[in-house]
Protein backbone atom coordinates (compact mmCIF):
# COMPACT_ATOMS: atom_id res chain seq x y z
CA UNK A 1 0.00 0.00 0.00
CA UNK A 2 1.42 3.39 -1.00
CA UNK A 3 2.08 5.59 2.02
CA UNK A 4 2.49 9.28 2.62
CA UNK A 5 5.47 10.58 4.57
CA UNK A 6 3.17 11.07 7.58
CA UNK A 7 1.98 7.46 7.39
CA UNK A 8 5.56 6.17 7.12
CA UNK A 9 6.63 8.17 10.16
CA UNK A 10 3.66 7.02 12.25
CA UNK A 11 3.99 3.40 11.08
CA UNK A 12 7.62 3.28 12.19
CA UNK A 13 6.76 4.69 15.62
CA UNK A 14 3.86 2.25 15.95
CA UNK A 15 6.09 -0.70 14.91
CA UNK A 16 3.86 -1.41 11.92
CA UNK A 17 4.72 -1.88 8.26
CA UNK A 18 1.85 0.35 7.12
CA UNK A 19 -0.95 2.35 8.73
CA UNK A 20 -4.21 3.72 7.33
CA UNK A 21 -5.59 7.23 7.98
CA UNK A 22 -8.19 7.21 10.76
CA UNK A 23 -6.74 4.22 12.61
CA UNK A 24 -5.93 4.71 16.29
CA UNK A 25 -2.38 3.61 17.03
CA UNK A 26 0.04 3.80 19.95
CA UNK A 27 3.40 5.31 19.07
CA UNK A 28 6.74 5.12 20.83
CA UNK A 29 8.17 8.59 21.39
CA UNK A 30 11.77 9.23 20.28
CA UNK A 31 12.00 12.72 21.76
CA UNK A 32 9.92 14.76 24.21
CA UNK A 33 10.61 18.49 24.40
CA UNK A 34 9.36 20.78 27.14
CA UNK A 35 9.78 24.44 27.98
CA UNK A 36 9.65 26.16 31.35
CA UNK A 37 5.98 27.06 31.21
CA UNK A 38 4.34 23.75 30.33
CA UNK A 39 7.25 21.58 31.45
CA UNK A 40 8.86 20.89 34.84
CA UNK A 41 6.65 23.19 36.91
CA UNK A 42 3.59 21.28 35.70
CA UNK A 43 4.83 17.69 35.28
CA UNK A 44 6.93 17.50 38.47
CA UNK A 45 3.96 17.53 40.89
CA UNK A 46 2.08 15.03 38.71
CA UNK A 47 5.06 12.65 38.58
CA UNK A 48 5.33 12.91 42.36
CA UNK A 49 1.64 12.15 42.80
CA UNK A 50 2.09 9.01 40.69
CA UNK A 51 5.45 8.19 42.32
CA UNK A 52 6.60 7.57 38.76
CA UNK A 53 9.94 7.97 37.05
CA UNK A 54 10.69 9.43 33.63
CA UNK A 55 10.79 6.56 31.15
CA UNK A 56 14.02 7.67 29.49
CA UNK A 57 15.69 10.96 30.51
CA UNK A 58 17.98 10.68 27.44
CA UNK A 59 14.96 11.25 25.22
CA UNK A 60 13.89 14.39 27.06
CA UNK A 61 14.94 17.92 26.13
CA UNK A 62 14.14 20.91 28.35
CA UNK A 63 14.60 24.47 27.11
CA UNK A 64 13.79 27.64 29.05
CA UNK A 65 12.31 30.42 26.92
CA UNK A 66 8.94 31.67 28.22
CA UNK A 67 9.73 33.10 31.67
CA UNK A 68 13.12 34.61 30.86
CA UNK A 69 14.25 37.14 31.78
CA UNK A 70 12.88 36.07 35.15
CA UNK A 71 12.01 39.51 36.42
CA UNK A 72 9.49 38.68 39.13
CA UNK A 73 9.14 36.15 41.93
CA UNK A 74 6.79 33.81 40.05
CA UNK A 75 9.02 33.70 36.96
CA UNK A 76 12.11 33.07 39.09
CA UNK A 77 10.36 30.20 40.81
CA UNK A 78 9.25 28.66 37.49
CA UNK A 79 12.80 28.84 36.10
CA UNK A 80 14.32 27.52 39.35
CA UNK A 81 11.95 24.55 39.23
CA UNK A 82 13.11 23.72 35.69
CA UNK A 83 16.77 23.89 36.73
CA UNK A 84 16.25 21.69 39.77
CA UNK A 85 14.08 19.16 37.99
CA UNK A 86 16.50 18.43 35.13
CA UNK A 87 19.21 17.83 37.73
CA UNK A 88 17.01 15.52 39.83
CA UNK A 89 15.80 13.51 36.85
CA UNK A 90 19.08 13.46 34.98
CA UNK A 91 18.00 15.31 31.84
CA UNK A 92 21.27 16.26 30.21
CA UNK A 93 19.86 18.01 27.18
CA UNK A 94 18.90 21.18 29.07
CA UNK A 95 19.29 24.58 27.40
CA UNK A 96 18.82 27.50 29.70
CA UNK A 97 18.54 30.96 28.20
CA UNK A 98 19.97 29.84 24.86
CA UNK A 99 16.92 30.63 22.78
CA UNK A 100 13.41 29.55 21.86
CA UNK A 101 12.81 25.80 22.06
CA UNK A 102 11.68 25.26 18.44
CA UNK A 103 14.87 26.89 17.15
CA UNK A 104 17.33 25.47 19.71
CA UNK A 105 16.09 21.88 19.23
CA UNK A 106 17.21 21.50 15.60
CA UNK A 107 20.26 23.75 15.88
CA UNK A 108 21.67 21.24 18.41
CA UNK A 109 21.09 18.40 15.97
CA UNK A 110 18.48 16.68 18.17
CA UNK A 111 15.94 16.15 15.40
CA UNK A 112 16.44 13.75 12.53
CA UNK A 113 14.31 12.56 9.64
CA UNK A 114 12.19 9.56 10.62
CA UNK A 115 11.78 10.53 14.27
CA UNK A 116 8.50 10.67 16.17
CA UNK A 117 8.54 13.55 18.65
CA UNK A 118 6.23 15.54 20.89
CA UNK A 119 6.62 19.03 22.30
CA UNK A 120 4.86 20.80 25.12
CA UNK A 121 4.05 23.78 22.91
CA UNK A 122 1.66 24.40 20.05
CA UNK A 123 4.42 25.40 17.64
CA UNK A 124 6.02 21.96 17.95
CA UNK A 125 5.06 21.11 14.33
CA UNK A 126 8.23 23.14 13.52
CA UNK A 127 10.13 19.85 13.84
CA UNK A 128 8.32 18.55 10.75
CA UNK A 129 10.61 20.70 8.62
CA UNK A 130 13.21 17.99 9.22
CA UNK A 131 11.06 15.10 8.08
CA UNK A 132 10.16 14.12 11.65
CA UNK A 133 6.60 13.70 12.90
CA UNK A 134 6.31 16.27 15.68
CA UNK A 135 3.26 17.81 17.30
CA UNK A 136 2.24 19.81 20.34
CA UNK A 137 0.62 18.42 23.46
CA UNK A 138 -0.48 19.78 26.85
CA UNK A 139 1.24 19.16 30.17
CA UNK A 140 -0.97 16.30 31.33
CA UNK A 141 -0.48 14.46 28.06
CA UNK A 142 3.26 15.15 28.40
CA UNK A 143 3.07 13.49 31.81
CA UNK A 144 1.62 10.43 30.08
CA UNK A 145 4.55 10.39 27.65
CA UNK A 146 7.09 10.84 30.45
CA UNK A 147 5.64 7.90 32.37
CA UNK A 148 4.98 5.48 29.51
CA UNK A 149 7.15 6.65 26.60
CA UNK A 150 4.09 6.31 24.40
CA UNK A 151 1.20 8.33 23.02
CA UNK A 152 -1.94 7.54 21.04
CA UNK A 153 -2.52 9.00 17.64
CA UNK A 154 -5.27 8.94 15.06
CA UNK A 155 -3.28 8.28 11.89
CA UNK A 156 -3.55 11.52 9.94
CA UNK A 157 -4.61 12.08 6.41
CA UNK A 158 -2.21 14.22 4.39
CA UNK A 159 -3.11 17.54 2.83
CA UNK A 160 -0.50 18.34 0.19
CA UNK A 161 0.35 21.99 -0.49
CA UNK A 162 2.46 22.01 -3.63
CA UNK A 163 4.27 25.13 -4.78
CA UNK A 164 5.86 25.08 -8.19
CA UNK A 165 8.48 27.54 -9.44
CA UNK A 166 10.18 29.90 -7.04
CA UNK A 167 9.06 32.59 -4.61
CA UNK A 168 9.72 36.10 -5.91
CA UNK A 169 12.48 38.13 -4.26
CA UNK A 170 11.11 39.75 -1.11
CA UNK A 171 8.53 37.01 -0.54
CA UNK A 172 9.18 34.56 2.28
CA UNK A 173 7.83 31.37 3.88
CA UNK A 174 5.86 33.60 6.25
CA UNK A 175 3.96 35.02 3.26
CA UNK A 176 3.24 31.51 2.02
CA UNK A 177 1.71 30.60 5.38
CA UNK A 178 -0.34 33.79 5.76
CA UNK A 179 -1.58 33.19 2.23
CA UNK A 180 -2.59 29.59 3.03
CA UNK A 181 -4.21 30.50 6.36
CA UNK A 182 -6.17 33.29 4.68
CA UNK A 183 -7.26 30.91 1.96
CA UNK A 184 -8.14 27.83 4.03
CA UNK A 185 -8.78 29.31 7.48
CA UNK A 186 -7.32 28.48 10.87
CA UNK A 187 -8.97 25.07 10.74
CA UNK A 188 -7.95 24.40 7.14
CA UNK A 189 -5.44 21.80 8.31
CA UNK A 190 -8.27 19.80 9.95
CA UNK A 191 -5.77 18.51 12.56
CA UNK A 192 -4.24 16.31 9.85
CA UNK A 193 -0.70 16.31 8.44
CA UNK A 194 0.05 19.13 6.02
CA UNK A 195 2.91 18.36 3.64
CA UNK A 196 4.63 21.23 1.83
CA UNK A 197 6.08 20.11 -1.48
CA UNK A 198 7.22 21.25 -4.86
CA UNK A 199 10.15 23.01 -6.47
CA UNK A 200 9.65 26.25 -4.53
CA UNK A 201 9.76 24.41 -1.20
CA UNK A 202 12.91 22.50 -2.19
CA UNK A 203 14.62 25.83 -2.85
CA UNK A 204 14.03 27.05 0.72
CA UNK A 205 16.73 26.84 3.36
CA UNK A 206 16.02 24.93 6.58
CA UNK A 207 14.97 27.93 8.65
CA UNK A 208 12.45 28.99 6.01
CA UNK A 209 11.08 25.43 5.96
CA UNK A 210 10.84 25.67 9.75
CA UNK A 211 8.62 28.75 9.34
CA UNK A 212 6.27 26.76 7.11
CA UNK A 213 6.08 23.85 9.53
CA UNK A 214 5.81 26.21 12.53
CA UNK A 215 2.75 28.05 11.25
CA UNK A 216 1.00 24.79 10.48
CA UNK A 217 -0.26 25.41 14.02
CA UNK A 218 -2.16 28.47 12.76
CA UNK A 219 -3.36 26.50 9.73
CA UNK A 220 -4.88 23.98 12.15
CA UNK A 221 -2.77 20.98 11.16
CA UNK A 222 -1.41 18.50 13.68
CA UNK A 223 1.91 18.24 11.87
CA UNK A 224 3.58 20.21 9.08
CA UNK A 225 6.02 18.19 7.03
CA UNK A 226 8.71 18.79 4.46
CA UNK A 227 10.46 15.78 2.90
CA UNK A 228 14.11 15.74 3.86
CA UNK A 229 16.73 16.26 1.14
CA UNK A 230 20.36 17.31 0.83
CA UNK A 231 19.53 20.72 2.35
CA UNK A 232 18.23 18.90 5.44
CA UNK A 233 21.21 16.54 5.58
CA UNK A 234 23.72 19.40 5.30
CA UNK A 235 22.01 21.45 8.01
CA UNK A 236 21.91 18.50 10.40
CA UNK A 237 25.46 17.47 9.67
CA UNK A 238 26.63 21.00 10.52
CA UNK A 239 24.48 20.85 13.66
CA UNK A 240 26.31 17.73 14.81
CA UNK A 241 23.60 15.18 14.04
CA UNK A 242 25.93 13.13 11.85
CA UNK A 243 24.78 11.29 8.75
CA UNK A 244 21.02 11.10 8.34
CA UNK A 245 18.76 8.91 6.22
CA UNK A 246 16.63 10.95 3.80
CA UNK A 247 15.55 8.57 1.03
CA UNK A 248 13.28 6.48 3.25
CA UNK A 249 11.30 9.52 4.36
CA UNK A 250 9.45 10.59 1.23
CA UNK A 251 5.78 10.22 0.33
CA UNK A 252 5.18 7.55 -2.28
CA UNK A 253 4.15 9.16 -5.57
CA UNK A 254 0.84 7.31 -5.64
CA UNK A 255 -0.02 7.71 -1.95
CA UNK A 256 -3.52 9.01 -1.32
CA UNK A 257 -4.00 12.51 0.02
CA UNK A 258 -7.09 14.12 1.51
CA UNK A 259 -6.49 17.10 -0.77
CA UNK A 260 -3.69 18.17 -3.08
CA UNK A 261 -3.52 21.90 -3.77
CA UNK A 262 -1.26 23.32 -6.48
CA UNK A 263 0.09 26.86 -6.48
CA UNK A 264 2.59 28.79 -8.54
CA UNK A 265 5.00 30.31 -6.03
CA UNK A 266 5.59 33.23 -8.39
CA UNK A 267 2.00 34.37 -7.75
CA UNK A 268 2.49 34.86 -4.00
CA UNK A 269 2.83 38.49 -2.93
CA UNK A 270 3.93 39.76 0.50
CA UNK A 271 1.01 39.16 2.87
CA UNK A 272 -0.20 40.97 5.97
CA UNK A 273 -2.73 39.60 8.45
CA UNK A 274 -4.86 42.23 10.19
CA UNK A 275 -6.11 42.02 13.80
CA UNK A 276 -7.22 39.74 15.39
CA UNK A 277 -6.51 36.63 13.32
CA UNK A 278 -3.75 35.24 11.09
CA UNK A 279 -6.59 34.31 8.73
CA UNK A 280 -7.30 38.01 8.06
CA UNK A 281 -4.58 38.07 5.46
CA UNK A 282 -4.32 39.95 2.19
CA UNK A 283 -1.60 41.41 0.01
CA UNK A 284 0.50 43.85 2.05
CA UNK A 285 -0.29 46.68 -0.33
CA UNK A 286 -3.96 46.51 0.64
CA UNK A 287 -2.98 47.70 4.15
CA UNK A 288 -0.65 50.36 2.77
CA UNK A 289 -1.09 53.54 4.73
CA UNK A 290 -1.86 51.87 8.07
CA UNK A 291 0.46 53.68 10.47
CA UNK A 292 2.45 51.62 12.95
CA UNK A 293 4.34 52.59 16.12
CA UNK A 294 5.97 49.21 16.84
CA UNK A 295 7.82 46.89 14.47
CA UNK A 296 8.59 43.59 16.17
CA UNK A 297 11.09 41.10 14.79
CA UNK A 298 10.84 38.20 17.19
CA UNK A 299 9.75 34.65 17.97
CA UNK A 300 10.46 31.17 16.64
CA UNK A 301 8.34 32.09 13.64
CA UNK A 302 10.15 35.26 12.71
CA UNK A 303 13.55 35.93 14.30
CA UNK A 304 15.80 33.09 13.24
CA UNK A 305 19.05 33.93 11.47
CA UNK A 306 17.31 33.69 8.07
CA UNK A 307 14.67 36.15 9.31
CA UNK A 308 17.24 38.59 10.72
CA UNK A 309 19.01 38.53 7.36
CA UNK A 310 15.77 39.41 5.54
CA UNK A 311 15.19 42.34 7.87
CA UNK A 312 18.80 43.45 7.38
CA UNK A 313 18.51 43.40 3.60
CA UNK A 314 15.80 46.05 3.92
CA UNK A 315 17.35 48.00 6.79
CA UNK A 316 20.88 48.29 5.39
CA UNK A 317 21.60 52.02 5.18
CA UNK A 318 18.09 52.89 6.40
CA UNK A 319 16.58 53.82 9.74
CA UNK A 320 13.31 53.09 11.47
CA UNK A 321 10.96 56.04 11.05
CA UNK A 322 10.60 58.54 13.87
CA UNK A 323 7.97 57.34 16.29
CA UNK A 324 8.45 53.65 15.41
CA UNK A 325 9.91 51.39 18.08
CA UNK A 326 11.89 48.70 16.24
CA UNK A 327 12.28 45.68 18.53
CA UNK A 328 14.50 42.72 17.68
CA UNK A 329 14.53 39.55 19.79
CA UNK A 330 16.74 36.99 17.97
CA UNK A 331 15.24 33.52 18.32
CA UNK A 332 18.41 31.90 19.61
CA UNK A 333 21.71 32.91 21.12
CA UNK A 334 23.60 31.05 18.39
CA UNK A 335 21.64 32.83 15.68
CA UNK A 336 22.31 36.16 17.38
CA UNK A 337 26.03 35.43 17.63
CA UNK A 338 26.14 34.38 13.99
CA UNK A 339 24.25 37.53 13.00
CA UNK A 340 26.72 39.59 15.00
CA UNK A 341 29.79 37.98 13.39
CA UNK A 342 28.55 38.45 9.86
CA UNK A 343 27.37 42.04 10.40
CA UNK A 344 23.64 41.40 10.15
CA UNK A 345 23.02 42.44 13.74
CA UNK A 346 25.05 45.62 13.28
CA UNK A 347 22.82 46.65 10.38
CA UNK A 348 19.73 46.18 12.55
CA UNK A 349 21.27 48.16 15.41
CA UNK A 350 22.32 50.97 13.09
CA UNK A 351 18.72 51.15 11.93
CA UNK A 352 17.73 51.91 15.50
CA UNK A 353 16.74 48.45 16.72
CA UNK A 354 16.32 47.77 20.40
CA UNK A 355 17.91 44.37 21.09
CA UNK A 356 15.86 42.07 23.34
CA UNK A 357 16.66 38.70 24.96
CA UNK A 358 16.57 35.40 23.03
CA UNK A 359 13.20 34.38 24.43
CA UNK A 360 9.53 34.17 23.47
CA UNK A 361 9.21 37.74 24.77
CA UNK A 362 6.23 39.77 23.66
CA UNK A 363 4.98 37.02 21.35
CA UNK A 364 3.81 34.84 24.22
CA UNK A 365 2.55 37.81 26.22
CA UNK A 366 3.79 36.12 29.40
CA UNK A 367 6.49 38.48 30.57
CA UNK A 368 6.81 42.13 31.47
CA UNK A 369 7.20 43.26 27.86
CA UNK A 370 3.52 43.75 27.04
CA UNK A 371 2.08 46.05 24.41
CA UNK A 372 -0.05 48.95 25.65
CA UNK A 373 -3.48 49.92 24.38
CA UNK A 374 -2.00 52.57 22.06
CA UNK A 375 0.22 50.11 20.19
CA UNK A 376 -0.28 49.43 16.51
CA UNK A 377 2.36 46.84 15.70
CA UNK A 378 3.56 44.98 12.66
CA UNK A 379 5.13 41.75 13.81
CA UNK A 380 6.97 38.72 12.45
CA UNK A 381 5.23 36.50 15.04
CA UNK A 382 2.61 33.84 14.37
CA UNK A 383 -0.54 34.98 16.19
CA UNK A 384 -2.40 38.23 16.61
CA UNK A 385 -5.32 37.12 18.73
CA UNK A 386 -6.97 39.90 20.70
CA UNK A 387 -4.88 40.76 23.76
CA UNK A 388 -2.23 38.10 23.11
CA UNK A 389 0.69 40.52 23.16
CA UNK A 390 -0.73 42.84 25.81
CA UNK A 391 -3.71 45.16 26.04
CA UNK A 392 -6.85 43.90 24.24
CA UNK A 393 -7.00 47.28 22.49
CA UNK A 394 -3.51 46.90 21.00
CA UNK A 395 -3.61 46.12 17.29
CA UNK A 396 -1.22 43.54 15.84
CA UNK A 397 -0.59 43.04 12.13
CA UNK A 398 1.49 40.07 11.01
CA UNK A 399 4.00 40.07 8.18
CA UNK A 400 7.31 38.65 6.99
CA UNK A 401 10.63 40.02 8.26
CA UNK A 402 10.94 41.94 4.96
CA UNK A 403 7.51 43.50 5.43
CA UNK A 404 8.06 44.32 9.10
CA UNK A 405 11.43 45.95 8.38
CA UNK A 406 10.07 47.93 5.42
CA UNK A 407 7.07 49.07 7.46
CA UNK A 408 9.41 50.20 10.24
CA UNK A 409 11.26 52.40 7.77
CA UNK A 410 8.09 53.79 6.19
CA UNK A 411 6.23 54.21 9.50
CA UNK A 412 3.28 52.51 7.86
CA UNK A 413 2.54 49.08 6.46
CA UNK A 414 4.01 48.63 3.01
CA UNK A 415 5.04 46.08 0.39
CA UNK A 416 8.78 45.57 1.02
CA UNK A 417 9.68 44.94 -2.62
CA UNK A 418 9.94 48.67 -3.32
CA UNK A 419 12.90 48.82 -0.94
CA UNK A 420 14.66 45.81 -2.49
CA UNK A 421 14.96 47.41 -5.90
CA UNK A 422 18.58 48.20 -6.73
Amino acid at each position, binding site marked *: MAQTLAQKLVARAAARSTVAPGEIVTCKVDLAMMHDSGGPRRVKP*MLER*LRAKVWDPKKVVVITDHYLPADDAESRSIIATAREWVREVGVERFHDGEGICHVVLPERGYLKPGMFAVGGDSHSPTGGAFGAYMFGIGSTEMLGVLVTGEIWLKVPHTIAMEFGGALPDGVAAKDVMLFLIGRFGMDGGQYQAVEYRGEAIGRLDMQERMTLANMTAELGGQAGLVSPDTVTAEFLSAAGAGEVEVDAWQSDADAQTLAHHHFDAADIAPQVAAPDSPANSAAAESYGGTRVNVAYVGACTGAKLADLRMAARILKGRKAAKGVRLMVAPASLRDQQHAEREGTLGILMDAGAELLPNTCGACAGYGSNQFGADVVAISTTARNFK*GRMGAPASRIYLGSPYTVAASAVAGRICDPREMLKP
Partner: protein
Amino acid sequence: MSKAWVFGDNVDTDALAPGKYMKLGIEDIAKHCLESVDPAFATRVEHGDVVVGGRNFGLGSSREQAAAALRHLGVEAVVAISFAGLFYRNALNLGLAVLTCPKAARIRAGDALQIDAEAGEIRNKTTGETLACEPIPSHLMEMVRDGGLLPHLEKRMAQTGSGR
Protein backbone atom coordinates in the same frame (compact mmCIF):
# COMPACT_ATOMS: atom_id res chain seq x y z
CA MET B 1 -29.80 21.59 34.89
CA SER B 2 -27.09 23.28 32.92
CA LYS B 3 -27.34 26.76 31.53
CA ALA B 4 -25.78 27.46 28.15
CA TRP B 5 -23.16 30.18 27.65
CA VAL B 6 -22.91 30.78 23.93
CA PHE B 7 -19.78 32.04 22.17
CA GLY B 8 -18.92 32.32 18.48
CA ASP B 9 -16.34 30.74 16.20
CA ASN B 10 -12.61 30.63 16.97
CA VAL B 11 -12.63 31.03 20.76
CA ASP B 12 -8.86 31.00 21.30
CA THR B 13 -6.64 29.90 24.18
CA ASP B 14 -5.46 33.47 24.82
CA ALA B 15 -9.10 34.30 25.62
CA LEU B 16 -9.56 31.16 27.75
CA ALA B 17 -6.28 31.49 29.66
CA PRO B 18 -4.73 34.94 29.08
CA GLY B 19 -0.92 34.88 28.82
CA LYS B 20 -0.25 37.51 31.45
CA TYR B 21 -1.81 35.31 34.16
CA MET B 22 -0.17 32.07 33.01
CA LYS B 23 2.50 32.26 35.69
CA LEU B 24 -0.21 31.99 38.36
CA GLY B 25 -2.18 29.01 39.60
CA ILE B 26 -5.40 27.83 37.99
CA GLU B 27 -7.64 29.59 40.55
CA ASP B 28 -6.19 32.94 39.44
CA ILE B 29 -6.15 32.14 35.72
CA ALA B 30 -9.79 31.02 35.91
CA LYS B 31 -10.84 34.46 37.21
CA HIS B 32 -9.84 35.89 33.83
CA CYS B 33 -11.20 33.09 31.67
CA LEU B 34 -12.90 34.55 28.57
CA GLU B 35 -12.76 38.09 30.01
CA SER B 36 -11.74 39.59 26.66
CA VAL B 37 -14.93 38.16 25.13
CA ASP B 38 -17.38 38.37 28.06
CA PRO B 39 -16.05 40.13 31.19
CA ALA B 40 -18.95 38.76 33.28
CA PHE B 41 -18.41 35.09 32.41
CA ALA B 42 -15.97 34.02 35.12
CA THR B 43 -17.97 35.59 37.94
CA ARG B 44 -21.42 34.57 36.74
CA VAL B 45 -20.90 31.06 35.37
CA GLU B 46 -22.36 28.45 37.72
CA HIS B 47 -21.35 24.92 38.55
CA GLY B 48 -22.74 22.56 35.91
CA ASP B 49 -23.17 25.21 33.19
CA VAL B 50 -22.22 24.41 29.61
CA VAL B 51 -20.04 26.46 27.26
CA VAL B 52 -21.22 26.40 23.64
CA GLY B 53 -18.92 27.46 20.83
CA GLY B 54 -18.97 27.59 17.07
CA ARG B 55 -16.18 26.35 14.82
CA ASN B 56 -12.61 25.62 15.89
CA PHE B 57 -13.13 26.09 19.63
CA GLY B 58 -9.88 26.30 21.61
CA LEU B 59 -7.49 27.14 18.78
CA GLY B 60 -4.03 28.42 19.57
CA SER B 61 -1.73 27.38 22.35
CA SER B 62 -1.01 23.99 23.92
CA ARG B 63 -1.63 25.54 27.36
CA GLU B 64 -4.04 23.13 28.98
CA GLN B 65 -4.99 25.82 31.50
CA ALA B 66 -7.48 26.84 28.76
CA ALA B 67 -9.45 23.67 29.50
CA ALA B 68 -8.50 23.56 33.19
CA ALA B 69 -9.90 27.08 33.77
CA LEU B 70 -13.31 26.03 32.45
CA ARG B 71 -13.27 22.93 34.61
CA HIS B 72 -12.17 24.97 37.62
CA LEU B 73 -15.16 27.26 37.12
CA GLY B 74 -17.42 24.21 37.24
CA VAL B 75 -18.23 24.02 33.54
CA GLU B 76 -19.72 20.58 32.91
CA ALA B 77 -19.01 20.33 29.20
CA VAL B 78 -18.02 22.27 26.12
CA VAL B 79 -20.19 21.82 23.05
CA ALA B 80 -18.99 23.14 19.70
CA ILE B 81 -19.41 22.64 15.98
CA SER B 82 -15.70 21.74 15.87
CA PHE B 83 -12.68 21.84 18.16
CA ALA B 84 -9.01 22.59 17.62
CA GLY B 85 -7.30 19.20 17.95
CA LEU B 86 -4.87 20.19 20.67
CA PHE B 87 -7.60 21.66 22.90
CA TYR B 88 -9.75 18.59 22.34
CA ARG B 89 -7.00 16.25 23.53
CA ASN B 90 -6.18 18.50 26.51
CA ALA B 91 -9.81 18.74 27.62
CA LEU B 92 -10.33 14.97 27.64
CA ASN B 93 -6.98 14.49 29.39
CA LEU B 94 -8.25 16.81 32.13
CA GLY B 95 -11.62 15.09 32.38
CA LEU B 96 -13.58 17.95 30.76
CA ALA B 97 -16.26 16.58 28.44
CA VAL B 98 -16.05 18.01 24.93
CA LEU B 99 -18.85 17.28 22.51
CA THR B 100 -18.64 17.91 18.79
CA CYS B 101 -22.15 18.89 17.76
CA PRO B 102 -22.77 19.90 14.14
CA LYS B 103 -25.96 21.71 15.19
CA ALA B 104 -24.47 23.56 18.17
CA ALA B 105 -25.56 26.85 16.58
CA ARG B 106 -29.17 25.98 17.42
CA ILE B 107 -28.45 26.48 21.12
CA ARG B 108 -29.24 29.96 22.48
CA ALA B 109 -27.64 31.68 25.46
CA GLY B 110 -29.45 30.69 28.64
CA ASP B 111 -31.04 27.53 27.22
CA ALA B 112 -31.34 24.76 29.78
CA LEU B 113 -29.35 21.75 28.61
CA GLN B 114 -29.02 18.20 29.76
CA ILE B 115 -25.81 16.60 28.60
CA ASP B 116 -25.24 12.89 28.16
CA ALA B 117 -21.57 12.66 27.24
CA GLU B 118 -21.52 8.87 27.02
CA ALA B 119 -24.48 8.71 24.67
CA GLY B 120 -23.28 11.80 22.79
CA GLU B 121 -26.57 13.60 23.19
CA ILE B 122 -27.74 17.03 24.27
CA ARG B 123 -31.32 17.55 25.35
CA ASN B 124 -32.37 21.19 25.13
CA LYS B 125 -35.05 21.53 27.81
CA THR B 126 -35.89 25.06 26.67
CA THR B 127 -36.67 24.13 23.06
CA GLY B 128 -37.48 20.46 23.54
CA GLU B 129 -34.91 19.57 20.91
CA THR B 130 -32.41 16.70 21.11
CA LEU B 131 -29.07 17.28 19.37
CA ALA B 132 -26.80 14.43 18.37
CA CYS B 133 -23.04 14.74 18.94
CA GLU B 134 -20.06 12.80 17.65
CA PRO B 135 -19.17 10.26 20.31
CA ILE B 136 -15.99 10.64 22.33
CA PRO B 137 -13.50 8.16 20.79
CA SER B 138 -14.09 4.77 22.44
CA HIS B 139 -10.42 4.24 23.33
CA LEU B 140 -10.60 7.39 25.50
CA MET B 141 -13.90 6.70 27.22
CA GLU B 142 -12.37 4.80 30.15
CA MET B 143 -9.95 7.67 30.75
CA VAL B 144 -12.79 10.19 30.66
CA ARG B 145 -14.81 8.06 33.11
CA ASP B 146 -11.78 7.98 35.41
CA GLY B 147 -11.75 11.78 35.40
CA GLY B 148 -8.80 12.34 33.08
CA LEU B 149 -5.35 11.00 32.30
CA LEU B 150 -3.77 11.56 35.72
CA PRO B 151 -6.36 9.62 37.76
CA HIS B 152 -6.48 7.08 34.93
CA LEU B 153 -2.74 6.45 35.14
CA GLU B 154 -2.98 6.39 38.92
CA LYS B 155 -5.60 3.64 38.71
CA ARG B 156 -3.66 1.68 36.12
CA MET B 157 -0.45 1.84 38.10
CA ALA B 158 -2.23 0.76 41.29
CA GLN B 159 -3.63 -2.23 39.38
CA THR B 160 -0.34 -3.33 37.90
CA GLY B 161 1.66 -2.31 40.95
CA SER B 162 4.25 -0.81 38.67
CA GLY B 163 5.81 2.48 39.56
CA ARG B 164 8.19 2.32 36.64
